[in-house]
């Protein structure tokens, strides 16, 4: 798997910082100095083996060269470019293939671009929500109709009174009375409308951030961990600080579920089992006599774990997204159909496991374990609901690897049989 253009530049920086000569590092890594020179100038791609040796020669962690915050930034920028590709002028198209360059040289500007993209989407959502409200709100439409009706009557009546020179007294009295009635109605209507527009539902309520993102931001701020003691004490105070009602309701549902998980599998018992069995959700579930879904949620919520977790409902919509390092998750829209998650969704109660690698995400591998269950909350004649979860664990093992993506628009896999739409990235072959 080729590494990104960023890698060569970083290697060079690290070598210079360590005060080492190209020839010495090349000798230690068992490659020629001229080859290292080409690598450092991003003119040659590096195989994982050579990368490993170079990292050892420089005494650095290989992952430090390509992963971390910057990888997330690269992914977010690609997603932003994909979203805005349709609107961009041809001459203003983002140089997606040089995104690592940008992140490497101007991390602050890159972060600002991502923040602007997020803000832009939030505003789009707010406009959509307000537009929906203007168009479809029956109360608003009723109020406006009432206002326009009384206003029409006032205007027509007042004009008759003003413009009819020989208006008979009977008619004049009648129109004066009508005018009075309609002006009362007009005032009441205007008051109702102002009251409606002023009522608590501000722009915040209209979804500046998608509720799910709000909850995920909150959990990210907690490093995705809620301890059993915190569950027992309650988290209402934190939840109150979420901006939208919808987010607060999602957060409460999340906490309620975590509480049920903790009751079924208390932290101490779980940690004890984990120490003996290792982070294998199916083995743990079998040993503890619990649903693998509970065990997966517990695993992903342990302090200090790097495990990622995604869950989806029967429609495939992601309902929970905790990313793992080197395994970026789509912020919105549909994910990669090759994920084991979807394999499990189609076959409830059968485990699906694969060693996976994200296209274009260096050569970091993950073990993805997925499991799905069905529920019938309204009894067996009611609708069948499905829930699937996929735990994403770091993996160093050897063996066949499935190349997957985050979502099609920002996926580099070249020969994908499941591709829904073209990618904005240059295709790469699959190893």
């Amino acid at each position, binding site marked *: 798997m080729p590494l990104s253009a960023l890698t060569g530049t970083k290697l060079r920086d690290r070598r210079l910082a360590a005060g080492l000569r190209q020839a010495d590092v090349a000798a230690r890594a068992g490659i020629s100095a001229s080859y290292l020179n080409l690598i450092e100038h991003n003119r040659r791609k590096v195989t994982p083996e050579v990368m490993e040796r170079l990292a050892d020669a420089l005494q650095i962690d290989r992952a430090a060269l390509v992963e971390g915050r910057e990888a997330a930034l690269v992914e977010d920028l690609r997603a932003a470019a994909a979203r805005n590709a349709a609107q961009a002028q041809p001459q203003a198209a983002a140089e997606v293939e040089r995104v690592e360059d940008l992140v490497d040289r101007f991390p602050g500007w890159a972060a600002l671009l991502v923040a602007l993209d997020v803000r832009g989407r939030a505003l789009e959502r707010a406009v959509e929500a307000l537009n929906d409200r203007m168009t479809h709100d029956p109360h608003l439409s009723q109020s406006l109709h009432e206002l*326009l*009706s009384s206003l029409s009557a006032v*205007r*027509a*009546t007042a004009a*008759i009174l003003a413009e009819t020179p020989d208006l008979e007294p009977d008619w004049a009295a009648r129109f004066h009375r*009508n005018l009075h009635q309609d002006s009362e109605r007009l005032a009441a209507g205007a008051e109702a409308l102002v009251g409606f527009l002023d009522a608590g539902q501000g722009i915040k309520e209209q979804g500046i951030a998608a509720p799910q993102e709000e909850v995920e931001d909150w959990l990210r701020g907690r490093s995705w961990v809620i301890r059993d003691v915190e569950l027992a004490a309650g988290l209402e105070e934190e939840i109150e600080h979420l901006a939208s009602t919808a987010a607060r309701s999602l957060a409460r549902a999340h906490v309620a579920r975590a509480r049920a998980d903790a009751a079924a599998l208390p932290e101490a018992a779980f940690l004890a089992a984990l120490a003996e069995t290792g982070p294998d959700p199916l083995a743990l579930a079998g040993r503890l006599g619990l649903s693998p879904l509970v065990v997966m949620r517990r695993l992903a919520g342990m302090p200090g774990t790097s495990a990622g977790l995604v869950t989806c409902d029967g429609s495939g919509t992601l309902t929970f997204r905790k990313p793992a390092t080197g395994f970026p998750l789509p912020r919105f829209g549909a994910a990669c159909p090759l994920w084991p998650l979807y394999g499990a969704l189609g076959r409830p109660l059968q485990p699906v496991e694969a060693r996976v690698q994200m296209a274009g995400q260096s050569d970091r591998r993950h073990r993805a374990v997925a499991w799905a269950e069905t529920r019938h909350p309204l009894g067996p004649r009611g609708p069948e609901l499905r829930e699937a979860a996929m735990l994403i664990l770091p993996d160093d093992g050897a063996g066949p690897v499935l190349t997957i993506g985050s979502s099609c628009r920002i996926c580099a896999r070249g020969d994908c049989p499941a591709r829904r739409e073209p990618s904005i990235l240059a295709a790469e072959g699959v190893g």
Partner: protein
Amino acid sequence: MAQHVLLIEDEPNIAEAIRFLLTRDGLRVSHAAEGAAALVLLRQDPPDLVILDHMLPGMSGLEVLTAVRADPESRNLPVMMLTARGRDREMAEAAGADRFMTKPFSNAEIIAEVRTMLGQPRQAP
């Protein structure tokens, strides 16, 4: 004989004002406050022009218009619709309305429009 206008409008004070204006302009005006009654009147005493409010209780203005257009007797009857919103206008146009007046209209506008639709010469104000 005076030309006959059927006014279908549920707001009594608007109806009264329009009726007054058109009567003074030499027209005969009959009035219905809702759609079903209006369709009965239409058959009993066929008008030369219909003024139809868009928002009516029960049968909506559009439904009344569709019924008017479905009857061969009234297929070509000129219909003026009183609408409040721009989007309603497209639907009314598709349903076969000839002219539109947007609320709140001015009295001079409505008289001029009625005269035009009845083929009367425009009078000096």
